[in-house]
């Protein structure tokens, strides 16, 4: 899931500036689960904006242009008349809205990461979308995202008592986790292997996937 966080309200209001007709779009999937762009948060922004809020809708998945078109179509007249759209969804959703409507879009959320949900309000980054998954070699734990240095042959010298130096030795060193997991799985030889350099050209430009 894409994890988002609400931007401070005053920052959002500053970004909206003097715009008088604001249409609010929420997200019925990820941002609803994060409680950042569901019905409740859309309502809250509408009440903050009062008469400046000219309309609102929670789109099931605003990052999917097809769904966006479907869910926005009953509101097209108001959207057309709006001078800004406040997007309570991730960056992909906000850009889809911008692309589809051509309107000025103000992001109401910051997009943080691709994460795992422990419970509502507790999310952990688990995937950097690196395009080259190797977790079969690392006990099902991703060092690209969970090692602060993204090392492939860790741990580094900053590990102390099983903890990571980044952030002051409060979190577990992921390479110690990987070691333990592989040991449990009877695959310690995997830990000892040298993982060679990554091909960064895969991330050198924005990714497009066209399978047909």
């Amino acid at each position, binding site marked *: 899931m894409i994890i988002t966080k609400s931007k401070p309200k005053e920052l959002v209001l500053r970004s909206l500036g003097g715009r008088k007709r604001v249409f609010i779009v929420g997200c019925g999937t990820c941002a609803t689960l994060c409680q950042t762009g569901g019905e409740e948060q859309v309502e809250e922004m509408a009440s903050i904006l009062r008469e400046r809020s000219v309309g609102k809708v929670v789109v099931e998945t605003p990052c999917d242009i097809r769904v966006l078109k479907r869910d926005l179509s009953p509101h097209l007249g108001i959207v057309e008349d709006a001078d800004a759209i406040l997007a309570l969804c991730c960056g992909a959703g906000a850009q889809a809205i911008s692309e589809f409507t051509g309107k000025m879009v103000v992001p109401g959320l910051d997009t943080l990461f691709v994460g795992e949900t422990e419970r509502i309000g507790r999310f952990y980054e688990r995937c950097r979308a690196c395009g080259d998954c190797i977790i079969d070699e690392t006990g099902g734990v991703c060092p690209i995202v969970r090692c602060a240095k993204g090392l492939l042959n860790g741990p580094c010298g900053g*590990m102390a008592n099983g903890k990571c130096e980044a952030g002051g030795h409060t979190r577990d060193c992921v390479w110690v986790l990987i070691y333990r997991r592989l040991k449990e799985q009877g695959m310690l030889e995997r830990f000892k292997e040298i993982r060679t350099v990554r091909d960064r050209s895969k991330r050198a430009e924005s990714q497009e996937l066209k399978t047909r």
Partner: protein
Amino acid sequence: MKKAYSGFMRALSEGKFVFTGEVEPKKTTKLDGIIRAASVLKSHVVACNVTDNPRARAYLSSLVASYVIQRETGLETICHMTVRDRNRLALTSDLLGASALGIRNVLVISGDHTMGGDNPGAMPVYDLDSTQFVQMVRGMVDNGIDLNGNPIDGEVRLHVGVVGNPNADPLEVEVCKVERKIKAGAEFIQTQIVFDVEKAKRFLKDLNPSIPVLIGIFPCKSYRVAEFIVNKIPGISVPKEYIDGLKSAESPGSPSESKNKIDAVNMDYFSNFIKELKKTTKAAGIHIMTMGYESIVGKIADGVLDEARGLN
């Protein structure tokens, strides 16, 4: 043992027990400080390490400092290179430059995370990790190619060393990591500072390395410095007897009297430390980190070397 391009590697390959020192360039454009520090070390060590933005602080370049030290003092250097601040292109450039300028030893370090440095907003690079860096150096030195197989004009004459941490807990994870770096082609190991000789012994026993290991020590120039290590650097245990020794050496007296006493505590403690290492392990030498306390290096190193020659 591969061909020795440096005096440091030659001494190691001849089985000599070696001492190395360390110089830390600062955030400065002045070179006199590093030249002075290296001059103090020169007659006591086979080479000196030159740090590369330690603790993620942006300082004068280790490559430039290494070159200047060698040129001005004649002391061979071990140039630190972290993979934190440069991608594979920049690292390749610096390795080529180092070789061209007569620097013959590099020590690869991951580098403390930028979050704890003096520009915490900086992007940490880590395009390569230290193991991959070793592989890259091997390709350059042994096969004359860069990481992507592009040919290099001229011979690359460098030795590459790596770091190990005997204080690491769990130690077996660290040992596996260092083994990887040896497998990748590292030629020597230098360790994180150790105060507890038993930790150094256990590390060497568990690793049973096929390449020379220099154990890192850090004589503290005051009780305050030792206290800082205990409180601020997690994972490094400092024996109480050493700390107590420093504390009582600082009891009232003239500053020079106190300094002599501190020197004596360090000479006594680390001479015994080294004697024990030499007696019980195959440690190839000692790396002495000083951070402004260069005067102690000769006192410790010369004492050990004199004793080996039967002069004490």
